[in-house]
């Protein structure tokens, strides 16, 4: 039943996107593709933090794994695109699994630190093995528009189609996972780990699974981003990327897939807008390229201080009649729970 509803919603969105991409120019198509790539990665992260209650500050590292996997497969083995995307998700999942196993015992700041270190350390591998990964220059990633679309078909529109399809499939899968048993177990884990363990949940396995699912999304998102930007280089997967993905997840509303979409839209459209405004107010181009960064910071702080449930939480309060009943009692329980174990407030 839920599956049918999710599929229906996805189909509707797909039709809207199809019409949209046919009507807008190449640059907007490119931006749509960019949003789709971010949505894929942010959706995974928002589940990891919002549902399973674990934090990753270094999700850019998993995106890098997926992107490099995709680039290498396209470059050397010329796999078809859908297989490449599947493989990059698997590569991301494998990396996440390894970190998840190591991190299953870690809590709060220790986990954050381990993921932070991963994001800083991983790009240096690309420099060390420059023969395979292309060093600072990176690897170029090109996909060709299929022949049946004709030679005049704009390549950016094809990019938008491919990335949106991948993003929608990811969202449907995640929505089902979140609604089903696994999602419920994750929420229980997030709300009170000890209670969850006493109820017979395998806490370590659930925590690792959350990392695997989330980093698979990040790997796919990274591969999509690589295809969109045509290049994979260490400079594209810095700590700044990890932080902007995290910003998008938080700004949109943790644990909410719709929130992941809002956050990604902000990520793609707001920086260019803010930079333009800053430049038109007389700042030099070097200075105004830093305005969006400072704005990210202000947004992160402001969201946490003023509306911790993000855009989606705000929309729900505005539009929806009541908050979903499922989170009510658990929230009440959590308030009385031990302070040191809590990761975040329920926002589903």
């Amino acid at each position, binding site marked *: 039943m839920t599956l049918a509803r999710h599929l229906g919603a996805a189909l509707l969105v797909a039709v809207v996107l199809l019409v949209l991409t046919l009507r807008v120019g190449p640059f907007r198509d490119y931006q749509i593709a960019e949003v789709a790539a971010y949505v894929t990665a942010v959706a995974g992260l928002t589940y990891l*933090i919002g549902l399973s209650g674990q*934090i990753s*500050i270094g999700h850019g590292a998993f995106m890098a794994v997926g992107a490099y996997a995709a680039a290498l497969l396209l470059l050397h083995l010329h796999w078809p695109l859908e297989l490449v995307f599947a493989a990059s998700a698997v590569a991301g999942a494998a990396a996440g699994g390894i970190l998840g196993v*190591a991190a299953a*015992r*870690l*809590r*709060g*700041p*220790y986990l*954050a*630190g*381990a993921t*932070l*270190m*991963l994001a*800083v*350390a991983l790009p*240096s*591998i690309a*420099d*060390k093995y420059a023969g395979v990964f292309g060093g600072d220059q990176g690897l170029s990633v090109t996909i060709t528009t299929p022949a049946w679309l004709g030679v005049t078909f704009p390549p950016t529109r094809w990019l938008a189609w491919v990335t949106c399809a991948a993003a929608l499939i990811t969202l449907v899968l995640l929505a089902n996972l979140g609604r089903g048993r696994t999602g419920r177990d994750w929420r229980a884990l997030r709300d009170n780990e*000890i209670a969850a363990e006493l109820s017979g949940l395998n806490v370590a396995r659930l925590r690792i699974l959350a990392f695997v699912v989330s980093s698979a999304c990040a790997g796919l998102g990274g591969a999509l981003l690589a295809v969109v930007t045509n290049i994979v280089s260490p400079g594209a997967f810095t*700590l700044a990327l990890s*932080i902007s993905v*995290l*910003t998008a997840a*938080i700004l949109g509303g943790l644990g909410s897939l719709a929130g992941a979409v809002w956050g990604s839209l902000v990520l793609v459209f707001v920086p260019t807008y803010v930079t333009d405004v800053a430049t038109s107010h007389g*700042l*030099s181009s*070097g*200075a*105004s*390229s*830093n*305005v*969006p*960064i*400072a*704005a*990210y*910071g*202000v*947004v*992160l*702080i402001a*969201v*946490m*201080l003023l509306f*911790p449930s993000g855009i989606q939480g705000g929309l729900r309060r505005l539009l929806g009649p009541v908050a979903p009943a499922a989170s009510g009692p658990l929230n009440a329980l959590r308030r009385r729970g*031990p*302070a*040191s*174990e*809590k*990761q*975040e*407030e329920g926002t589903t």
Partner: protein
Amino acid sequence: MQEFLEFTLGGLAVGMIYAAIALSLVLIWRGTRILNYSQGGMAMFTTYVALIVINHTGNYWEGFAVALASGLVLGAVLERAVIRPIENKPPLNAVIVTIGILVFLEGLAGIIYGGQFRSFPPAFSIVGLTIGSTALGISRDDLFTAAAVLAASLLLALLFRYTSVGLRLRATAFNANVARLLGVRIGRVLTLGWALAGLIGALAGVLVTPSTFLYPNSMDSIFVLGFTAAVIGGLESPLGAVVGGLILGVVLSYAGGYLGSDLVPIFGLGALMLVLMIRPSGLFSTTAVRRV
């Protein structure tokens, strides 16, 4: 043997920087149970302030003093303005707010000072010292770095041990509610903790920047390693922070020296994971990881 000596002493010198960052993190963690991800950004910002003063007056020590003072003020202001409202919220909120401070400070530095690399003067000569014909791998400036961090740690230890302010700081770290019942003004103590952390972080920034250049992200990698040092030390113990910093400095110096400098971050990650696998709450931690 010659190489070994150079790597060891050089590692200890760098380790002192990690120790200072780790110390500032521990100061805040003990008081507020918040990990301050903006520590590196704060240090970067105060170092810019120092550079401006040095360029203006031509006197290194005036810049040095201003950096420490502005670190003190910055720490206190941030605690009052943005940390206080989230102190009793879930830990994730604090993580995100401090990351927000970091991103904001880096963006602000980029807007005000531009993104280009600037050189920052060292306090003393950076020419390598020798004993007879044996190069030691460290300079006068490294010695000053070590002395400054050790002096700061010692002063902190004395403050904690022998003053009533230190007693209040320890009481708050031990149990904030009990301390409050006994008449400690918790709010002021927490602000003081952040101010002191800001000061130590500013010290680390001024000391390390001569060897890294100054730009908005210049403290990122230093912070990550300082954080690693703090985690290795166990986040609870100031002594652990210093020891963790020195261990990390020496290990990374060997790794970089013998195996190639490209892999230093990987070895940092490896060291962190290894310690966390063996002791999930660090080497010097005494309290239980999970509170039931």
